[in-house]
């Protein structure tokens, strides 16, 4: 079956047959390909190289365009490679560069083939081999073939030479030591007059300089020459890229290159070069005002161009400038805003980014207005992009740029009404956050919330549910600011709320509860005051009653009074009549009645709570008109007590909680936090977790409410609570370990949450902060959090820093840059690790070898390289002594020394070429062949 025959070779399908077959197949592409692969697997085993190579080509095709694995054929590719025929070699090289990678087992078998082809007299064979090397070279290949590449770098065939130059990039990267051999020759190629070679060399340096610019500073003069002399735009662009990296490192250099770059900017007609000049100036030369002005002056050329590419790039440049020179953006404001309505999404997003960069305290209103109007007109995706960036810009640094919060809250409301708005969650967060942080905005917040809640159409929009959730919470929490609570109540209980998900519906019900309590309480107050005004004998029954009630503390009464006072000041709600109260209660019963059977626990529970409350209080109001005040000591009083109590519970304010709040609770002395919390389980099964825990808003308050409410409800308040306290006390006794010590010996069945009196100080601090936020709009949240002990953080810092430092010294790139520096600066510089110091020793000796060989004819050069290692070992010995003395602890190389080195570079720049050359050699004491590194410095 397998043996090759004339028939096989005659009827083998060529690649073209395969492609044709693929296009005409009727059995399905996959089936056809697997059949073809089967064929290929047979053919590729053939001993006939023609059959084999055709099979390999077909396989490469299937791998490249139909993504079938061809790793099984790696060895066959090698066999084809050994063919003397060019066409076979070409197929083999193509296959190899497609399928070989660092862990291919047969990779090393290729070395000799490559070497043979690298030394071939046929330039196309050499080129194939170089190309393959540029794709697959690993450490070993790079090391073993460095001599051949070195030779090719000065080949007189330009076709080969430029490729040899280009392949050096990969060789350096894989085997940094090759720098010692090839770098000098690479630099020499910079002087080459041929534009192709120059373009290749500059390309290589551009790549190298991107990774580690500092090492290439000494070559600045060469690059400068090219920058001034070259007429080739490709080359100029690459040189500009190099200077963009070098200029920030060396101010003197920046000063030198500014003028030539500006010259190019003025003269050139090529947009690509112009763009590169502009980009270089704005990224790396932004301190040179005149250059920046010139560059920014060129930007409009891009912005107004018909070509969307230029427009896009122009905007990109602007956003780079914007970081330091915002005026540049405002200069082009018109074009930027116009680009917002471009057809191209890239351009739109880029201009949006710019517009957001322009936003400041004084123009945020204006810009947001423009953008929101724009969002209304644009496609859904961009609309949300706009909304997202408004939200994130405005909320930056705790609403730093917002001065008028009333405006912002109404903007949030407006944004949520935009048809495509998908930012519900973010708007929700901000509404609540602002409500909590900024006291003065609450009136407006409630107004906005009301407008949102009252619109039945919004309930149908799934994306708005989160916003509505925030609105309902805000209107419940800050109901005292409401103009018309009754209307709010209707909104919260409207039938379409059934469209809401249960979790949000529960919040609706809870808010309705708060509003209800508020309405009843207001009504009672009104009545109380009318009575107190008409008949002074009948003193405020409510207040006296509440004071007499032992479950009330004075604070809450004050709060209650406070609340009404403020509310009286702020707005004048419609007078609530008894009739309207009765209607209200009926409405609640009607709306929530069906929910008692809801499948959602949360909804069910909330609904039951409210209904229970209504049950309790309803009688009073129903009978009110009949009984008047005669029965004031009976049920009426009891109901008003309940209302009073609930109202006080709800009127406690929620403050913002710092993320580090938990850290402010000092750890009690004897507390042992067990690593394994497993034994908590045992304890947990004893307790019934409070169900309302899962409720996110204001859970601490409700916790208390829940308890006290039920206490009252069952009329056996003291008993009930006693029962629970005794349970708790017992629990405490058994598991005392897990309890925090108590200040008072009393039990506390509520957690120490945000509003706990113990933390009152902090909250007051927060309140002060909040005032500051509204005034200065700049205060970061809560300072005390910094005071907490942070041992862990210190550790983190170490962890963060260490790997960076290690990377600096040990990464491959750095060994490359180390090698390059050795060559360019002389070996005295910067040898942080001992292993590298060895390297550099070797290198300098190698360099000497090279120096020699540089003067010698090329034939000798190869020998020199081969036995390079031996003579160096002798020299290394005493060289390294000197080294040791100079760097006692090379590992502890610090930033100072880095600085020192920088200084050295600077000074060497100042001193000019000859001195620096000597400098490098001085400590060596081997002045015999003193290899002067010429022309490297300005």
């Amino acid at each position, binding site marked *: 079956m397998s043996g090759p025959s004339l028939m096989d*070779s*005659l009827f083998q399908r060529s*690649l*073209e047959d395969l*492609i044709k077959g693929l*296009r005409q197949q009727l059995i399905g592409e996959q089936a056809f390909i697997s059949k073809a692969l089967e064929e290929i697997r047979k053919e590729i085993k053939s001993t006939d190289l*023609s*059959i084999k*190579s*055709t099979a390999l*080509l077909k396989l490469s095709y299937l*791998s*490249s*365009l139909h*993504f079938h694995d*061809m790793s099984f054929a790696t060895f066959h590719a090698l066999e084809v490679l050994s063919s003397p*025929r*060019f*066409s076979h070699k*070409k*197929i083999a090289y193509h296959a190899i560069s497609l399928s*070989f*990678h*660092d862990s291919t087992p047969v990779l090393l078998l290729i070395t000799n083939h490559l070497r043979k082809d690298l030394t071939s007299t046929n330039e*196309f064979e050499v080129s194939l081999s*170089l*190309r393959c090397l*540029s*794709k*697959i070279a690993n450490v070993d290949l790079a090391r073993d073939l460095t001599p051949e590449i070195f030779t090719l770098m000065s080949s007189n065939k330009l*076709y080969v030479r*430029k*490729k040899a130059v*280009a*392949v050096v*990039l*990969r060789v350096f990267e894989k085997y940094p030591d090759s720098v010692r051999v090839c770098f000098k020759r690479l630099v020499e190629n910079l002087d080459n007059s041929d534009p*192709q070679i120059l*373009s*290749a060399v500059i*390309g290589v340096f*551009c*790549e190298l300089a*991107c990774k580690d610019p500092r090492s290439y500073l000494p070559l600045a003069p060469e690059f400068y020459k090219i920058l001034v002399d070259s007429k080739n735009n*490709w080359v100029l*662009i*690459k040189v500009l*890229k190099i200077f963009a990296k070098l200029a920030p490192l060396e101010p003197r250099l920046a000063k030198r290159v500014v003028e030539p770059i500006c010259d190019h900017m003025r003269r050139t007609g090529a*947009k*690509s070069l112009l*763009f590169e000049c502009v980009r270089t100036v704005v990224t790396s030369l932004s301190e040179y005002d005149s250059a920046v002005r010139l560059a920014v002056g060129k930007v409009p050329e891009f912005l107004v161009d018909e070509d*969307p*590419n*230029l*427009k*896009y*790039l122009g905007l990109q440049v602007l956003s780079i400038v914007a970081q330091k020179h915002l005026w540049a953006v405002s200069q082009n404001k018109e074009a930027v805003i116009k680009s917002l309505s471009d*057809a*191209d999404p*890239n351009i739109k997003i880029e201009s949006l980014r710019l517009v957001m960069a322009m936003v400041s305290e004084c123009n945020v209103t204006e810009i947001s207005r423009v953008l929101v109007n724009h969002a209304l007109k644009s496609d859904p995706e961009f609309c949300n992009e706009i909304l997202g960036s408004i939200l994130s810009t405005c909320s930056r640094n705790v609403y730093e740029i917002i001065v008028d919060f009333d405006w912002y809250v109404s903007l949030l409301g407006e944004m949520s009404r935009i048809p495509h708005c998908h930012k519900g969650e973010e708007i929700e967060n901000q509404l609540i956050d602002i409500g909590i942080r900024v006291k003065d905005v609450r009136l407006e917040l409630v107004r906005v919330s009301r407008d949102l809640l009252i619109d039945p159409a919004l309930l149908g929009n799934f994306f708005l549910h989160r916003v509505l959730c925030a609105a309902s919470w805000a209107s419940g929490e800050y109901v005292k600011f409401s103009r018309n609570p009754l209307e709010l109540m209707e909104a919260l209980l409207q039938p379409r709320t059934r469209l809401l998900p249960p979790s949000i519906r529960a919040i609706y019900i809870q808010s309705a509860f708060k509003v209800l309590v508020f309405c009843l309480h207001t009504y009672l107050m009104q009545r109380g005051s009318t009575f107190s005004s008409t008949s002074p004998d009948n003193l405020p029954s409510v207040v006296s009653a509440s004071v007499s009630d032992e479950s009330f503390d004075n604070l809450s009464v004050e709060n209650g009074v406070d609340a009404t006072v403020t509310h009286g000041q702020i707005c004048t709600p419609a007078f609530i009549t008894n009739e309207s109260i009765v209607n209200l209660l009926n409405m609640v019963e009607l709306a929530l009645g069906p929910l008692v059977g809801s499948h959602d626990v949360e909804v069910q529970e909330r609904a039951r709570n409210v209904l229970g409350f209504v049950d309790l209080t309803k009688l009073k109001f129903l009978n009110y008109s009949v009984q008047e005040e005669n029965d004031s000591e009976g049920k009426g009083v009891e109901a008003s007590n309940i209302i009073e109590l609930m109202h006080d519970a709800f009127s406690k304010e929620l403050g913002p909680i710092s993320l580090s709040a938990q850290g402010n609770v000092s750890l009690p002395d004897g507390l042992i936090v067990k690593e394994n919390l497993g034994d908590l389980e045992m304890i947990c099964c004893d307790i019934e977790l409070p169900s309302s825990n899962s409720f996110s808003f204001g859970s601490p308050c409700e916790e208390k409410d829940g308890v006290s409410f039920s206490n009252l409800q069952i009329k056996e308040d003291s008993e009930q609570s006693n029962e629970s306290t005794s349970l708790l006390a017992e629990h405490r006794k058994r598991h005392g370990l897990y309890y925090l010590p108590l200040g008072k010996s009393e039990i506390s069945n509520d957690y120490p949450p945000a509003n706990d009196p113990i933390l009152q100080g902090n909250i007051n601090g927060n309140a002060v902060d909040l005032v500051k936020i509204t005034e200065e709009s700049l205060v970061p949240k809560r300072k005390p959090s910094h005071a907490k002990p942070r041992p862990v953080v210190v550790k983190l810092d170490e962890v963060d820093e260490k790997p960076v430092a290690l990377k600096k010294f040990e990464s491959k790139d750095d060994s490359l840059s180390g090698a390059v520096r050795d060559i360019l600066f002389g070996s005295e510089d910067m040898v942080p690790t001992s292993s590298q110091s060895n390297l550099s020793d070797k290198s300098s000796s190698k360099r000497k070898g090279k120096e020699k060989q540089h003067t010698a004819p090329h034939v000798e050069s190869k020998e020199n390289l081969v036995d390079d290692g031996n003579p160096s070992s002798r020299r290394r010995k005493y060289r390294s002594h000197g080294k040791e003395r100079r760097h006692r602890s090379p590992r502890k190389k610090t930033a100072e020394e880095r600085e020192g080195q920088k200084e050295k570079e600077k000074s060497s720049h100042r001193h000019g070429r000859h001195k620096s050359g000597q400098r490098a050699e001085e400590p060596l004491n081997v002045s015999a062949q003193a290899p002067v590194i010429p022309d490297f410095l300005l």
Partner: protein
Amino acid sequence: MIKAVMVMNTQGKPRLAKFYEYLPVEKQQELIRRVFAVLCGRAENVSNFIEAESIFGPDSRLVYKHFATLYFVFVFDSSENELAVLDLIQVFVETLDKCFKNVCELDIVFNYSKIHTILDEIIFGGQVLETSSAEVMKAVEEISKLEAASNAITLIPKSASGWRSR
């Protein structure tokens, strides 16, 4: 540095795929698919850039050009100039056009090896080495001649497959 060159048709079928760093075939396929997914949603007469960092990782840019039924896509990093790469696509397409006299998708489908030869002359290991289509043509012709000659040596026994497999 150029990271990848892709040519695909407007149905998303790859016609040429060249990655300058080794990538497993599955990964290549995925990348091409994702690029196409973005490309096919773009209108005509918009800019030729798409955001590439989400597909190719940090420091990647992508420039494409749409000719008839084909997308030409070049992926590169910050050491290339966007407009220059755009010109480079133009050079590549012009060279193809000269090689095949009014190049169309079918030329690219049936000349797998030749397309690679052309591209290889322009981009070498991710670096642009030749930007003149005349020079590229010259080299490609030389290589074709050389291939033909090396096959012709043993023309008699292997005629059928030898000629066609080129």
